[in-house]
């Protein structure tokens, strides 16, 4: 039987038959359906995925007219940063980096971000960030977000003033760990609002809360409250992007609008993000490096399709290294990236990437 080139979740090239791929699509979609308690992909969806995977061209694309809007995380770090942000180390200023994205990469939107890319360290240098945003707004035509991670981890010892849940919980100090997290939430909300409001005054079009939930349900709670405040008190557009496919319960009992945050999957996350008032939601589905890309992408598309169907706001799925069905590999394999693009747009029906 004819074999097609495809990839594993770690990027290794493998050959699979159409039957083998279909089997992995089925297993992947069933895994998502079981975990998220959502519908698996239809046979029609699976057949279309197979068409995408058995296209022998290296690159695939959506049909003309199906294009979607792209929003970008990590700002210009991918140009001048180091490998941690997939940066290629070109010595450019951030303003130049924005110009490169607008005029060389034809980005639909872009964002300004700080080298640490977390809200907390921006507070003491907010004037510099405002100045940079003001200058960028003079020369940019595309909408510019200010982007940063809520990163509640920075509020715990040794980086912050509060006890670290990772240290406290193994000692059985669950109540103390929870109290430390609750205190961190309050401080993070204040910092995120302060920074966002200052960026609004500097002309930012929006704020991108990137990798929300990276430190668990505390991250999500702080973000939702900050978003709620910003949408009530400013005209900022707000994008909330996630860190993982379900909200980790590091606290476990935190709620927003009466809903427990821990354990929420994308189709449930989006309802709270909408409730907080955000304009765009960026769900994440993690890639399993030991499974094939067929398994991973079918699984990711299943979660995202359910999220798109549940949403009333635009969904910009996260499709970067190790998420959205794309392999975990520092030099993304173009065949995989473009297949994930096409599947997310034409099967999951996302509004953007």
């Amino acid at each position, binding site marked *: 039987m004819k074999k097609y080139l495809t990839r594993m*979740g*770690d990027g*290794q090239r493998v050959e699979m038959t159409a039957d083998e791929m279909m089997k992995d699509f089925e297993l992947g979609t069933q895994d998502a359906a*079981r*975990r998220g308690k959502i519908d698996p992909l239809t046979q029609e969806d699976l057949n279309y995925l197979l068409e995408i995977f058995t296209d022998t061209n290296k690159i695939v694309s959506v049909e003309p007219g199906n294009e979607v809007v792209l929003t970008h995380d990590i700002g210009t770090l991918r140009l001048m940063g*180091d*490998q*941690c942000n997939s940066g290629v180390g070109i010595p450019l200023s951030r303003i130049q980096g924005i110009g490169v994205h607008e005029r060389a990469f034809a980005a639909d939107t872009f964002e300004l971000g700080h080298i640490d890319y977390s809200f907390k360290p921006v507070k003491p240098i907010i004037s510099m960030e405002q100045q940079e945003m003001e200058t960028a707004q003079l020369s940019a035509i595309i909408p510019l977000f200010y982007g940063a991670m809520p990163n509640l*981890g920075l509020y715990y010892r040794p*980086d912050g003033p509060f006890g670290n*849940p*990772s*240290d406290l*919980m*193994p000692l*059985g100090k*669950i109540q103390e*760990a*929870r109290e430390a997290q609750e205190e961190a939430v309050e401080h993070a909300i204040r910092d995120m609002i302060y920074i966002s409001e200052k960026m609004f005054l500097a002309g930012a079009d929006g704020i991108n809360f990137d990798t929300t939930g*990276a*430190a*668990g*349900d505390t991250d999500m709670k702080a973000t939702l409250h900050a978003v709620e405040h910003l949408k009530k008190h400013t005209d900022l557009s707000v994008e909330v992007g996630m860190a993982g496919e*379900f*909200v*980790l*319960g*590091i*606290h*476990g*009992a935190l709620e927003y609008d009466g809903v427990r945050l*821990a*354990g*929420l*999957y994308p189709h449930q996350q989006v309802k709270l993000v909408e409730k907080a008032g955000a304009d765009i939601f960026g769900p994440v589905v993690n890639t*399993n*490096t*030991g499974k094939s890309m067929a398994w991973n992408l079918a699984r990711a598309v299943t979660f995202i399709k359910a999220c798109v169907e549940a949403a009333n706001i635009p969904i910009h799925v996260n499709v970067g290294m*190790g998420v959205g069905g794309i392999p*975990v590999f*520092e030099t993304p394999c173009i065949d995989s990236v473009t297949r994930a693009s096409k599947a997310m747009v034409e099967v999951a029906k996302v509004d953007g990437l």
Partner: protein
Amino acid sequence: MSREELFEKAAQSIVDANKDAAVEIAKKAIEEGIDPVDMINNGFSEGMSRCGELFDTGEMFLPELIVASDAMVAAINVLEQAMPVDSRTEKLGVAVIGTIEGDVHDIGKGIVATMLRVYGFEVHDLGRDVPIKAFVEKAKEVNADIVGSSALMTTTQVGQKALEEALKQAGLRDKVKTMVGGAVVTQRWADKIGSDLYAENATEAVMKLKELFG
């Protein structure tokens, strides 16, 4: 109450993280003459397995998992009184675990450490930003069976390779199993640096180590 009913109640007491109920069921099992080892394997351990599955699917969370593990320990303490000394449960292995120097991301590593404790390993968690030397010294000090390292970034991932070398130089490499994890780490990387184990997530880490040491 039948054996099967007691097993089920024991498992459920762990899933419910109900320490009092777990202890009561353990006492009841002794009264009814049920083999304590059977009670642990078919009842309480089954409950922990279910907790692992629920954690993996986001239906149970870290604090609950820790309380469930406390309930399990309390029940086992009761059952052990009715067991001959030589058949009492022992720790599955001694693990030294930490995040590689230069990397302050320790949430995932913390979950792995907690899960290992929950499932009966003795865990020495060195925390985040841990120098290679500290892994080696601790492994020597506690006579470790497992040395686990986590790296979120490709820039710190290389420290896992250095750890393999340092363990070899200290003459410990043949005595311990090494395990690597973290967002950017893959089976391919584990194979490349000669690590014994790679796990995609905390649940898989526990499953693989239980298979090796259980």
